[in-house]
Structures are given as structure tokens and as C-alpha cells.
């Protein structure tokens, strides 16, 4: 609730700043909530319009006969037969020898299981990569010797495409969850280390100097000034890398990890099933979108002090 109230105050203008006696807090909070709902509804509306336009163009192409439904099936075709598509999901358990295909999970459950498996790999990979990369980036700036020992290697490895690591993942971890998670980690880790370092270098010198003049030790300067100061930038880095994680997990899964969205795409490719490809793409798109939304909301909640600047750009 504190965040809501503060948003209201920020919109209150300068006369409402220090003593804040304009409106009773309860009323201000209600007003802030109402404006938040209005903004949310507007955003949802425009999201629907944006997707709707895209779908409409595709459907028109199909109507006009430009888009061949066997190659580029429009949304009403690939989304229309949910059960038909779902039977390709979670095939590892469904299509085992000696198991009746009808005994498996229901089509809806199968899709959810597959999505859950892929999402878990993305999340675990993202968390491991972030923890490793941020700690390493901070250590690199904290200890000069550590920087000299590690930074050249990290810089050397960071341009290597994750695809090149795929054989290594399989050599090391065989087949299963581990190679997929390893791939996500390796795809994010090096960039996130470099991003952390550049965030640290970008911290306002004055803030560091204030801490120094007050007698802060190196450890205190890092823990109380540098780490909080780089958090906003790191969350942006994390959001960018979230998409990279979604991309690389499909590659990892297509090599065979039991089941997952990447495995479904591979299956669709091998059986020449464009409807299944687009169906899966739609699922991935929705998942990525939702994840981004959640991270953005988290960002606003955790980093309450970062001002929203998009309004300035709109005014141009």
C-alpha cells in the first residue's frame, strides 16, 4: 500500500510535497488505485488491439489466398484444434512402449506439463546465472587480483554462441534437465558479468564519495551504496536476458530432454506440421510476455525510487 500512496503523492505536484495536507490518505489511496486500474485497462486494451491487428492481417492474407494454410496456417486453424495439437505434447510419457496413449494425461494437462517443464528450466537457469554473474561482477570490481585473474577469460568467452556449448552440455550432463539449464546459464552468465561491471562503473561518484567522507569501509561502500545503486540497471539487464533465456532453452530442448516446448517444435519440424509450430510459438510468446510483465511489476515494487521517464518521451 505504501507504493500506491507514494504514486499518488508524486502526482500531487509540488504544493503537496512536504506537509501533504491536500487530501486525507484514505481518499488519496483510493484515487491512486482508481487511476492505476484505469491505466491497466488502457494498457490491456492496446495490447489486444496490437495482437488483433496482427492476427487480422494474417487472416486477410489467408482469405485472399496469399498465405497457404499448409505452410502458414492462420491463427483460427492452428489455435482451433487444441486437442489435436495437444496430443503432441508430453510425448515422452504418452508414447512410451507398452503404455496406452489414451492413459496419459489429458490434452490440457499435457500442454501444462510441457509448459511447466520449460518454464522451470528457464527460471532455474535465470536464477543460477544471475546469482553467479552478479556475485562475480561485484567480486571483480572488489578485488583487483580477482579481476586480473578472471576478466580476460570471461571477455574471451562471452562472444561464443550458446550453440557452441550445446555439445559440451551433452558431454557433461547427458540428456535431461541439467543440460538445458546449463545452456540457459551459459547463455546469460558472461553477458551478465560484463553488464554488472559496467553498472558498477556507472554509479554516481558523488554517492560513493559521500560514503567515503563519512568513514565507510570498502565493504560498507559496496553493500550500502554500490549494490543498491546498481539494482535498477541489473533488473533491466535481467529483463533483457529473460528473452535470451527463452530463446536458448528451445535449442537445448530440441536435442532431447524428455519433453519441453523445444522438443515439440523439433517434432513439428520433423513431421512437417506448421500448425504445431505456430501453436507452440503462440504459447512461447504468451509465456515470455507474462514473464516480462511480472518482472516489470516486480521492478516497480522493488525499485520504488526509480522515476518513470517514459512520460517525458511521450511529450516530445
Amino acid at each position, binding site marked *: 500500500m505504501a507504493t500506491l500512496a*507514494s504514486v499518488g*503523492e*508524486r502526482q500531487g505536484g*509540488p504544493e503537496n*510535497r*512536504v*506537509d501533504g495536507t491536500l487530501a486525507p490518505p484514505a481518499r488519496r489511496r483510493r484515487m491512486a488505485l482508481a487511476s492505476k486500474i484505469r491505466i491497466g485497462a488502457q494498457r490491456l486494451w492496446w495490447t489486444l488491439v496490437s495482437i488483433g491487428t496482427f492476427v487480422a492481417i494474417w487472416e486477410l492474407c489467408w482469405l485472399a489466398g496469399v498465405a497457404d494454410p499448409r505452410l502458414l496456417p492462420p491463427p483460427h486453424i492452428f489455435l482451433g484444434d487444441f486437442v489435436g495439437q495437444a496430443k503432441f505434447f508430453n510425448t515422452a510419457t504418452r508414447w512410451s512402449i507398452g503404455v496406452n496413449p489414451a492413459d496419459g494425461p489429458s490434452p490440457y494437462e499435457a500442454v501444462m506439463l510441457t509448459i511447466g517443464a520449460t518454464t522451470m528450466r528457464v527460471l532455474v537457469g535465470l536464477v543460477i546465472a544471475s546469482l553467479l554473474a552478479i556475485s562475480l561482477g561485484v567480486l571483480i570490481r572488489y578485488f583487483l587480483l580477482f579481476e586480473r585473474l578472471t576478466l580476460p577469460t570471461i571477455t574471451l568467452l562471452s562472444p561464443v554462441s550458446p550453440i557452441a556449448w550445446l555439445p559440451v552440455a551433452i558431454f557433461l550432463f547427458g540428456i535431461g534437465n541439467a543440460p538445458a539449464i546449463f545452456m540457459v546459464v551459459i547463455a546469460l552468465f558472461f553477458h551478465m558479468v560484463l553488464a554488472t561491471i559496467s553498472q558498477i562503473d556507472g554509479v*554516481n561518484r*558523488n*554517492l560513493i*564519495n*559521500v*560514503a*567515503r*567522507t*563519512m*568513514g*565507510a569501509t570498502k565493504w*560498507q561502500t559496496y553493500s*550500502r*551504496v554500490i549494490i*543498491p*545503486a546498481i*539494482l535498477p540497471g541489473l533488473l533491466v539487464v535481467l529483463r533483457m536476458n529473460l528473452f535470451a533465456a527463452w530463446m536458448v532453452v528451445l535449442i537445448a530442448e530440441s536435442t532431447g530432454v524428455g519433453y519441453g516446448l523445444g522438443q515439440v517444435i523439433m517434432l513439428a519440424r520433423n513431421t512437417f506440421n506448421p500448425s504445431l509450430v505456430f501453436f507452440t510459438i503462440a504459447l512461447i510468446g504468451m509465456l515470455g510476455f507474462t514473464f516480462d510483465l511480472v518482472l516489470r511489476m516486480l521492478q516497480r515494487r522493488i*525499485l*520504488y*525510487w*526509480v*522515476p518513470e521517464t517514459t512520460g517525458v518521451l511521450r511529450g516530445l
Partner: protein
Amino acid sequence: MACDPAKPSNSSLICRGVSKTWAAGTERAHEALRDIDIEVAPGEFVTFLGPSGCGKSTLLYLIAGLEPVTSGEIWSSHQRVTGPSPDRSLIFQETSLFPWLTVWQNVSFGLGIRGADSKTRRAAARDALQRVGLTAAFDKRPDELSGGMRQRVAVARALAMRPKVLLMDEPFAALDVQTRQRMQDFLLDVWRDSGASILFVTHHIDEAVALADRVAVFTSRPGRIKTVVPIDLPRPRNLFSPQCEKLRIELTQDLRDEVDRAFAEQEALAAPT
């Protein structure tokens, strides 16, 4: 030029032959300060007046202990300055409040560094905010305050450390003229109240005349102290009084020569060789 630490001295701050050369020993080396000698008495208000880029801010950083001197020595309360100390608080031109902390947390940041508990910190913050007249902003965040208020919070944060010397690097330069005048009055109140010495960097002649016990006029690069002008007038000062008028004219003349020289140098540098 050696300074004997055992020698009893009234000064709360002594600079002896202080020089600073940036990037010394490289091709890009440039001399920012040369042979600065100045003593500041306890509770004295000294302004450093000079053209932009004359090294007056650099001197403040050296005194704060944030940068090492190239030669010379700086003594603060009979101790050689080798690094930053809470005795000497620095206030910057730009906002330097921690945006993720509330006002009171900002003000008591230094006490937190020393490991004070939350109760002590809150009490100290309340006290310091009272001295700058901002108790109402106790729980606000910096982005909810105006520029002038933020600088007052920065002053409160410096005062909370009970410094012997307050170093101010053009603290009001980013404020509008009206706010600036109010802030000057405010600063004088705070200064009298705290008993600390103030070293105040500015390039505004009026500001120097309104505030200082002594004005040290700097030459353009490398910065040296050209002259020190004492101002023995009661405060608040009327800048339009004949004495102030005379001082302003004198300082303007001193400064104009330096600005002319700085311009000539810059033009010489820009000219094709």
C-alpha cells in the same frame, strides 16, 4: 614549508604548499593547483572564489581527503590529512542523496556506518532535520523534494556527523536565484548554530560577499591564491551598501583579470599550430 604537528595552532585547517597535478608523469598531465597556503580558524567562513576550472573544487576534494595531494601537506585539527574523515563533510553541487533511502535514513547514513542502532539514528536524524527546518520531510523520499530541500537534507546529513569543517562545492549553483538567497540565509543560521568552519566554493561574487569572513580569490589554471580579502561586516549583509559595493567592485576586477587570462589561454590552445 614543513609544518610541525606539535606546534600549537589555533587553526582547524592548514594547507601548506599544496599542489595537485592530475595524471602526473603522463602526457596528459595538467597542473590544477600550485602552492596553496591557507589557514582556517575554527568557526571561520571562507569562500574560494575563482573562474571555472581553476582548481578550487579540486582543493576541496584534497581537503576532504578524497584525492591525494601531489606535494605539500594538509592538516586538520593537528592531524595530517591522508584520507576521508567524518570531521570534514563535503556537500556537492549536484544532489548526492541516496535515492533508495528516505530522508531520515539519508541523514543518519553516517551513523549507520558507525553501527548506531535505529533509535539513536532516528533521534539524530530528527535533531539534524530540525536544525535545517525540515522535520516534516522525515519520512519522505528524495525524489519527492525540491532541489533546495534536497540540499538542505544534504546539509543536515553533513551536520549529523558533527563535522569540524564543512566543505561545500558550489552547493547552491543548481538552484534558482530566489531559492539561492534563501539558502544563503539558511546556511548562515546553520553555520552560527553548529560552530563548524565552512569552506565554500563559488564563482558568484555576490555569494562570496554575502557569506564569507574571508574571500580567497583564485587565479586561473594552475590555481593559486591570488589574494585573500577579509570582510568584516555584520551579517545579514546588504549587498547594496557602499562597503559591499566597494568589495564587489574590487573582487569583480580581481576575477575579471583571471577570466580574461583563462580565455586567452583557451583560445591559444584552440588555435591551429
